[in-house]
């Protein structure tokens, strides 16, 4: 506890212990902190306020309607297709990025030669520095033509499973490709946080396991994974939060269709964020309000996901005794 040492004594030898400069400076710092609280709360307030008009004009159910015609004379719009696309793309991304990200961080922490580990970690972290527009451009121009074969293969050999079935002859601009690009984008998030957790595994646990004759994998399974589980979960949820809110890469890749289509290799699909970016400049007053409403839903979802993730991390800090 450094607090008692830093604070000036309550009574002083001469003059007042409370100095004017201190009060002012403290006030300024508190003000900045409050400003951040204010910004976060006003995001919710302003979005709700500007979203409300569209609700009263909507002649359909906002949550179950999948069409998007907010600027007609009788506006019809809803987020069903958007929510579906957002979650499907994010789930595909999670399914791909979680094992790869965790595997990568285990590899860097426990398998790679110590000298190379730093360079490898830096290389993976570089992925996080690439802007999403460049991921979108790359996904559109490089990944899409190169991954068509995978989609065709899935359709031909696993097509009996409805989600892989393709009723068109087009295999591009699909939720599957959007999911793959999202997976690449959230991989550094998952990998960096779980690496941080794996580095905190007490050295004694690792060495005890190895000393008892465990193989390297048994050491990972019995000493590292149980310790790191909360960290892995929250890392994945932070990745999920990023995948749900990602805009530009998805907007470039998907061919926006307002339809709930479970066939993920077919062109189509749409997400909250991509829809806002694509419809923004052509939207009328009610259209803007409707887009803001969908943005509010996205905000609340990511808020929930991130809060849970942060909660898990915070709880772990309290109980594990590791800092």
């Amino acid at each position, binding site marked *: 506890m450094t607090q008692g040492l830093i604070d000036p004594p309550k009574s002083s030898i001469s003059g007042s212990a409370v100095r004017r400069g201190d009060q002012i400076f403290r006030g300024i710092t508190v003000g900045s902190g409050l400003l951040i609280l204010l910004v976060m709360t006003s995001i919710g307030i302003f979005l709700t306020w500007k979203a409300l008009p569209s609700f009263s004009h909507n002649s359909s159910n906002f949550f179950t309607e999948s069409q998007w015609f907010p600027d007609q004379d009788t506006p019809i719009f809803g987020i069903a297709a958007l929510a579906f696309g957002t979650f499907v793309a994010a789930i595909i991304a999670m399914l791909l990025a979680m094992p790869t990200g965790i595997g990568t961080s285990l590899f860097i922490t426990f398998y790679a030669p110590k000298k190379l580990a730093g360079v490898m970690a830096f290389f993976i972290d570089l992925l996080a520095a690439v*802007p999403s527009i460049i991921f979108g451009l790359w996904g559109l121009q490089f990944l899409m033509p190169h991954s068509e074969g995978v989609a065709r293969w899935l359709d031909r050999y696993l097509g009996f499973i409805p989600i892989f079935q393709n009723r068109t002859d087009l295999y591009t601009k699909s939720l599957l490709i959007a999911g793959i690009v999202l997976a690449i984008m959230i991989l550094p998030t998952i990998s960096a946080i779980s690496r941080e957790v794996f580095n905190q595994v007490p050295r004694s646990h690792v060495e005890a396991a190895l000393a008892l004759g465990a193989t390297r*994998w048994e050491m990972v399974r019995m000493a590292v994974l149980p310790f790191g589980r909360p960290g892995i979960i929250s890392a994945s949820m932070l990745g999920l939060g990023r995948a749900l809110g990602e805009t530009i890469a998805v907007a470039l890749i998907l061919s926006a269709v307002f339809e709930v289509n479970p066939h993920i290799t077919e062109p189509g699909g749409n997400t909250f964020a991509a829809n806002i970016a694509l419809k923004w400049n052509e939207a009328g007053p009610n259209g803007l309000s409707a887009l803001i409403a969908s943005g509010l839903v996205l905000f609340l979802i990511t808020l929930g996901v991130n809060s849970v993730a942060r909660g898990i991390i915070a709880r772990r800090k309290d109980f594990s005794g590791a800092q």
Partner: protein
Amino acid sequence: MSTQLRGSILPKWFAVALAGLSIGSAVMIERTTSVAGVGGTITLAVLLYLVLQTTWSFTVEGRRHAIDRLFATLMYSSFVIAALPLATLIWTVVSKGIKELDMNFLSHSMRSVSPSKPGGGVYHALLGTLEQVGIATLIAVPIGILTALYLVEYARGGRLAKAISFFVDVMTGVPSIVAGLFIYTAFVLTFGFDRSGFAAALALTILMLPVIVRATEEMLKIVPADLREASLALGIPKWKTILRIVLPTAIGGIITGVMLAVARVAGETAPLLLTTFLSQSINQNPFAGPQAAIPTFIWDQISSATPASLDRAWAGALTLILLIMVFYGTAKLIARYYAPKA
């Protein structure tokens, strides 16, 4: 009875032999049936390797070692899978972007350049990005640093501090498009300003703030308490101690954090699409009129979708990556310059 402490293990050369065997058979299968293509052949080779290794190891070394080897191979492959996209991405951006990227591209705008014709450049967008990111930094840095000072130097775990700390964490996860939506609803719809470079800068500020607060906090926490105590013991007021002793000690790390935040928002596209209008010409005034930025420039060129505009999009992407690398490089240099000297 065996006196051996260690079971039999596979010789060192087995991995090489197996790799050769699996690649060989995968190529053979591809040649005779031709179902897979290049990607399929590689996948097939890896799968063959996994199966052969596990079987071989299982018969010679036993179950536990077979599983150990299986997972080791899986971890190595997951790293390769993770590194592959970055490698191809860098290669594509550099090889396609270098075609168009020259002094002419950097020093000209897109004014009266037809989307389908080559020519034009990124100057107007570069200018816009520098101005918008600059304004965002000017706003976010003082607020971010002061908030971190409150959290570390004054509050140390009070209720308000916990709330602020939690909201900073949550703010990190705010999707960039929501930041843009918020600035649009508040700044444009409610207060009646026009969409402008400044509105974009405000949206970027929201994205920068949590990064700066967190980085500063980390740095302040590692400033030794002795320094503060020595200063306070000499009768120096706390605010002066913070400004003259604590901040200068931590300044290297703080500037690095700020540069990383700058690098992160420089590539943001979504909030700019909502808060600025696309522009083809130079606009030095961020407070009025449409102003371009490199990310929206790339977006615009992709939307035009002609061969010439796609070339420009790639060149823009390369420019953006180089700009971000300059920011990162500066961050590293600053960190090194201010690092405590032994």
